[in-house]
């Protein structure tokens, strides 16, 4: 039985340059794509309520504020739990200490959120303003009992600013799988919050 004999072709220098030029072109295209991604993600729309203003992400779903909320926006493109930014305003006694407000907020969160656990709590400076940072997790389950879906583990971050008889709580909540990836964008939102 005879067989076909075929030989490999020697790679010419032109081939190597063609391969490199395709690789270079692809990297350039991806770099331009990254710039486009960044510019789209940085698009924002101005929000103002009373003395509080912020730059909320453009294109996010703005929900009707409930209770002490003044801003409630969520990313409709998120899978599972929608990444959410919240601004809440609590009236507190004029001489209230930050620690008292933190206890109050922790109690409220504990009763409202399933499986609420504080991971870390510390005092931080945000644009020169003192704040208490609370890092926490809870479990979010669909309210519709017929909706067969596993509950999501949500990671949250609260920044509590206490000033002249009011506490402003700026919150970030995201599915734990995307929490780190979305955190940078929230930090930009946080520094845009003014009162």
């Amino acid at each position, binding site marked *: *039985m*005879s*067989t*076909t*004999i*075929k*030989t*490999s*072709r020697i*790679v010419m220098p*032109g*081939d190597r*340059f*063609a*391969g490199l*030029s*395709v*690789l270079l*072109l*692809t990297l350039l*295209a*991806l770099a*331009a*794509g*990254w710039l*486009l*991604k960044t510019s*789209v*993600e940085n*698009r924002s729309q101005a929000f103002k309520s009373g003395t509080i203003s912020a730059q909320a992400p453009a*294109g996010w779903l703005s929900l009707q504020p409930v209770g002490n909320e003044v801003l409630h926006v969520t*990313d409709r*493109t*998120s*899978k599972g739990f929608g990444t959410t930014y919240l601004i809440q305003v609590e009236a507190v006694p004029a001489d209230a200490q930050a620690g008292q407000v933190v206890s109050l907020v922790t109690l409220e969160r504990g009763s409202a959120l399933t499986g609420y656990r504080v991971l870390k709590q510390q005092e931080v400076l945000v644009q020169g303003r003192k704040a208490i940072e609370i890092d926490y997790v809870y479990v979010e389950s669909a309210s519709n009992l017929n909706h067969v879906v596993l509950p999501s583990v949500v990671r949250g971050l609260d920044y509590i600013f206490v000033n002249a008889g009011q506490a402003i709580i700026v919150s970030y909540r995201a599915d734990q799988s995307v929490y780190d*990836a979305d955190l940078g964008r929230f930090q930009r939102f946080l520094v845009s919050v003014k009162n």
Partner: protein
Amino acid sequence: MPNQICCVCGKEGVKSIARRWFCAEHFESATHERPGSWRAILALVVVLIVFVGVVYGLDALIKPQFNPFTLMLVGVVLALVPAAIWLVFFYQQDRLEPEPAGYVLGVFALGALLAAAVGTPLLNNVFRVSHWLYADTLTTIVGSILVVGFTQEFLKYAAVRFSIYNSGEFDEPTDGIIYATAAGLGYATVLNVQFVIANGGVDLGAGVIAMAVVALAQASFAGITGYFLGRAKFGSNPIWWMPLGVTLAAVANGLFNWLRGLITHPAISLTGSAASPWLGLILAAVVAAGLMGLLVWLIRRNIKSALATQ
């Protein structure tokens, strides 16, 4: 003499075309357009339509529920069948010297592997395209070309260029299209399995139509790159030749992704009505079918050119 051996079956060669020897039987099949080949192509299209119809009907009748294992199984089967049909379709076009099936399947597997190991993680986890790509029409078109198009087309190019391209089996310009479409179909198979799993098996009837279109489209885009690869190996071309091929494929891929996005990300108006998902699917299918027609024409032109040199 080894060079007078039929390049298809290995028997004694009696006639040659473009420095390749053929036995009498394979010389006949290489030089004559058989009516049976058109019937075979038609039969493949009919098989695909029947398959889509059966899945559509079963989904409407049974409304199946899946557990994770059966969902994965159904996803793999639904993704593999259209890919296999299109693979046979493109493979049959190369009547001059059919490529070894094992090599074609190897490049198919490499395309799938690169999609699962590099393409999908890069697009979903690094670029996170679902979060920003559909912000507005211009962003969708530009982003689809720059990010989705270039990522996918580069990986399909790499699957051929850094594997079979340097082999002796890649011995005619048409082989570029055949191997690249195989890589494209491997890539499409992974995309389609992920599509079924992401939807949890919901609406398989409409989904299987989209999957057949995606498989054809991914094969056709890769085929453009493959055409340029084939010409690059057997001709002297300027340095921009290959980048041009990948760019054309990426542009076609990006436009297709935008049209397909009308299905997965329909624009919702204030009245609550949504853009018809079927319109996007039909437009995407037209793009894919047009490119497939172009590739078939290019393959036949290559074969005619080779026969003219005998």
